[in-house]
């Protein structure tokens, strides 16, 4: 497998053992693939938890099919217990945010794409990169282990609001809460190590000619995301350590009974948590930008304003955390401030959406599977962004806060947004990872079915949320005002089961194509990125000699391209001059 292709610029390495090459690898591409498999597994786990949540909400009190295999602490006579239900919602959120979407976007694509797209041989610190992966896996295993300890995993939501999470006597959780805290501290370490690596690599390892404003928007987004990560995760780690101390050592940081402050947890958590939301969407926006430009065969519309919009979102992301706390008893004047900063985020978000539309305007659109999913991303992220305005406007937030409306909103952003972007990205860079193409036909069927069932699942949640259905309640039917809308809950549940079922298509396509997919040509999407100057899959070390970069990343349909409608960054035209190489960083 090693360095089979011999294009003149390809790196050449001695063969390595299976263990060195695929398990304890320092190759950024292999680490990205490791993250991909692990986080797709956790995505499946999170999905299975979601199915149980939907069973309970749609059919409260009815025996869960297959529930017999679960122990009596979770399910009695097939019926989900209230404490298990609360654990389901808590762990669904935890797994999806920390172990599925975040590693899928950052762990996989920051690792895989940054060196390939900036013309680097690897990450700045390859061994730290390996440590980052193994720490993330360890964190995931610790989190999973909490299902198997006495009293099970956390029961305080993925947000772990104190003092519920700080007091085992009130939550009923002992070991599970400690494992959550430990896992998050380890995961935070993994993220910080990864982020430092991405930041250093982008600053120091860009190939000659890869100026800041020649970087693809995917790299810009991943770079800014890494800055958010390195600043946000330590706050969560600190808070998790304090929460652990409250649980284990008898400190009272968050317990007012002994002089602590309950709202302190929320401030710390959301000071991390809101930037985290942008960690979960910015890379998706970046990769979608690359794919839409490719699918439209046009340069991205307003490249510079796209870059500044990413920076603007990231900056505003630090001063909006209080909008999660409008109803918390925080001073209402602070609420006013946070409302204004939150509403302002609509501005850079609108800039991005309109620029994607501008990119497609007068294009020559190719509807390959990544493009379909990218268009799905734009249309669904728009709904998710707009529904956020309802909750940003504080008076309207009063009836909507902590109802299913916010559940709809977060899923329009994280599923309609991030996950559609990931379906696009996985399909798009699959040939670069594995040398084969995923099936277009299955991909298209998967996209359309997912798009339909996804909307049938999450759109009605807005309506039951308007009706007042609170989040995280085990049985909505005990409330008179919620009973009339129970048929909609049943509808949502059936749609969710269908949505889950059609993901089998994706799983099959992904796994089957590993071995039986069509062999990928070198540049299957006629793209401009540096990564397509390499064979598929690219060898360890990427390029034999550092490549030169001659232009920006989006020169589709440029007049100089002649007959073709693309002009890669690595192609030297007779009129191009070689860039002057920057002095190598001291680490080399």
């Amino acid at each position, binding site marked *: 497998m090693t360095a089979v292709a011999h294009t003149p610029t390809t790196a050449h390495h001695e063969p390595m053992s299976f263990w060195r090459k695929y398990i304890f690898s320092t190759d950024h591409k292999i680490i990205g693939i490791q993250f991909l498999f692990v986080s797709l597994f956790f995505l499946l786990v999170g999905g299975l938890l979601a199915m149980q949540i939907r069973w309970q909400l749609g059919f409260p009190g009815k025996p869960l099919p297959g529930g017999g295999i679960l122990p009596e602490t979770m399910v009695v006579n097939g019926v989900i217990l209230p404490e298990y239900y609360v654990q389901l919602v808590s762990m669904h959120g935890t797994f999806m945010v920390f172990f599925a979407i975040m590693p899928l976007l950052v762990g996989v694509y920051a690792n895989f794409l940054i060196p390939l797209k900036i013309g680097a041989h690897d990450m700045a610190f390859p061994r730290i990169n390996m440590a980052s992966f193994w720490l993330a896996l360890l964190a995931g295993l610790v989190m999973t282990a909490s299902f198997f300890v006495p009293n099970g995993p956390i029961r305080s939501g993925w947000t772990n609001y104190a003092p519920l999470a700080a007091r085992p006597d009130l939550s009923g959780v002992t070991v599970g809460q400690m494992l959550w805290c430990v896992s998050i501290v380890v995961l935070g370490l993994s993220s910080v190590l990864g982020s430092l690596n991405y930041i250093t690599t982008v600053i120091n390892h860009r190939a000659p000619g890869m100026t800041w404003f020649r970087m693809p928007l995917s790299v810009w987004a991943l770079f800014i995301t890494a800055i958010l990560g390195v600043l946000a995760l330590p706050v969560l780690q600190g808070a998790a350590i304090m929460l652990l101390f409250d649980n284990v050592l008898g400190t009272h940081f968050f317990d007012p009974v002994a002089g602590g*402050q309950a709202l302190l947890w929320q401030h710390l958590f959301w000071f991390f948590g809101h930037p985290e939301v942008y960690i979960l969407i910015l890379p998706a926006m970046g990769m979608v930008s690359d794919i839409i430009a490719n699918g439209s065969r046009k340069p991205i519309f307003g490249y510079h304003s796209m870059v500044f919009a990413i920076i603007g979102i990231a900056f505003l992301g630090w001063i909006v955390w209080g909008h999660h706390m409008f*109803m918390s008893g925080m001073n209402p004047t602070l609420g006013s401030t946070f409302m204004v900063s939150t509403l302002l985020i609509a501005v850079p978000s609108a800039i991005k959406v309109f620029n994607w539309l501008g990119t497609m305007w007068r294009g020559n*659109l190719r509807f390959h599977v990544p493009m379909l999913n990218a268009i799905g991303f734009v249309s669904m992220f728009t709904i998710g962004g707009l529904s956020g305005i309802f909750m940003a406007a504080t*008076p*309207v937030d009063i009836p909507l806060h902590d109802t299913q409306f916010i559940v709809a909103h977060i899923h329009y952003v994280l599923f309609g947004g991030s996950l559609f972007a990931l379906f696009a990205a996985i399909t798009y860079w699959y040939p670069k990872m594995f040398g084969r193409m995923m099936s277009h036909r299955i991909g298209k069927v998967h996209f359309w079915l997912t798009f339909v069932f996804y909307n049938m699942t999450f759109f009605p949640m807005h309506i039951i949320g308007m009706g007042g259905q609170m989040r995280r309640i085990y049985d909505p039917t005990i409330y008179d005002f919620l009973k009339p809308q129970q048929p909609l809950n049943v509808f949502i549940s059936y749609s969710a089961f269908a949505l889950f079922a059609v993901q089998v298509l994706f799983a099959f396509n992904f796994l089957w194509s590993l071995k039986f997919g069509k062999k990928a040509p070198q540049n299957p999407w006629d793209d401009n990125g540096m990564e397509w100057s390499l064979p598929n899959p690219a060898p360890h070390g990427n390029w034999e000699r550092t490549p030169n970069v001659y232009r920006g990343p989006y020169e589709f349909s440029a007049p100089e391209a002649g007959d073709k409608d693309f002009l890669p960054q690595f192609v030297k035209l007779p009129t191009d001059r070689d860039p002057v190489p920057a002095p190598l960083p001291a680490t080399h």
Partner: protein
Amino acid sequence: MRWWLPDAGSTFAGPIDTLFLAILIITGIALVVVEVGLVTFVIKYRARPGRKAFYTHGSTRAEVIWTAIPAVTMVALGLISNHYWVLIKDKKSIPPNAYHVGVHAKQFEWQVTYPGPDGKLGTSDDFTVRNQLHVTVNEPIAVELTSEDVIHSFFVPEFRLKQDAVPGMHIMAWFQATKTGEFELGCAELCGMGHYKMRARVFVHTPDEYKAWVAQQAAGGSE
């Protein structure tokens, strides 16, 4: 099946529902513009042989337009929202003549303390009732919210009122019911395994009914 916000039951419902509708219209327009644009472009600019995309890197004028319009809209929305926000949530907005009741939340019940016949909280004729909130219609009610253990959230959908009860904090919320009848009070903040059943009844009485109820409770002694 209900496709809208719950029926209005307090003075807050007017401005909140109007604002909701206004945002729905604004976001609805934005949504239609984006989605129609998207579908139009998908149909109109699909790849055809021999055609090349229009080579452009963008337009400053377009950027200015779609930066300025959302910015102005959002600032305006923020200013209007803030007016009502202050009216609903600011401590100073609580009418001085408001009738005070104490609501103490604990896993998993609401303990409502009434001022008794003298109309004053914190005196010896106060009495406490579990999971029942009785109020008078068209009278401003100030709820003094406290919590025994963890964070709970006082939520009456018809009143458009939600306010967390936080241990260690004494939080004031107020409302004025506009119609008599029976409503439900739910907990909107996950407070443990019994979160879902932390439910109380809300009774909105006419002034005479309320007086009679207080007299009856005071005579029967507190719970």
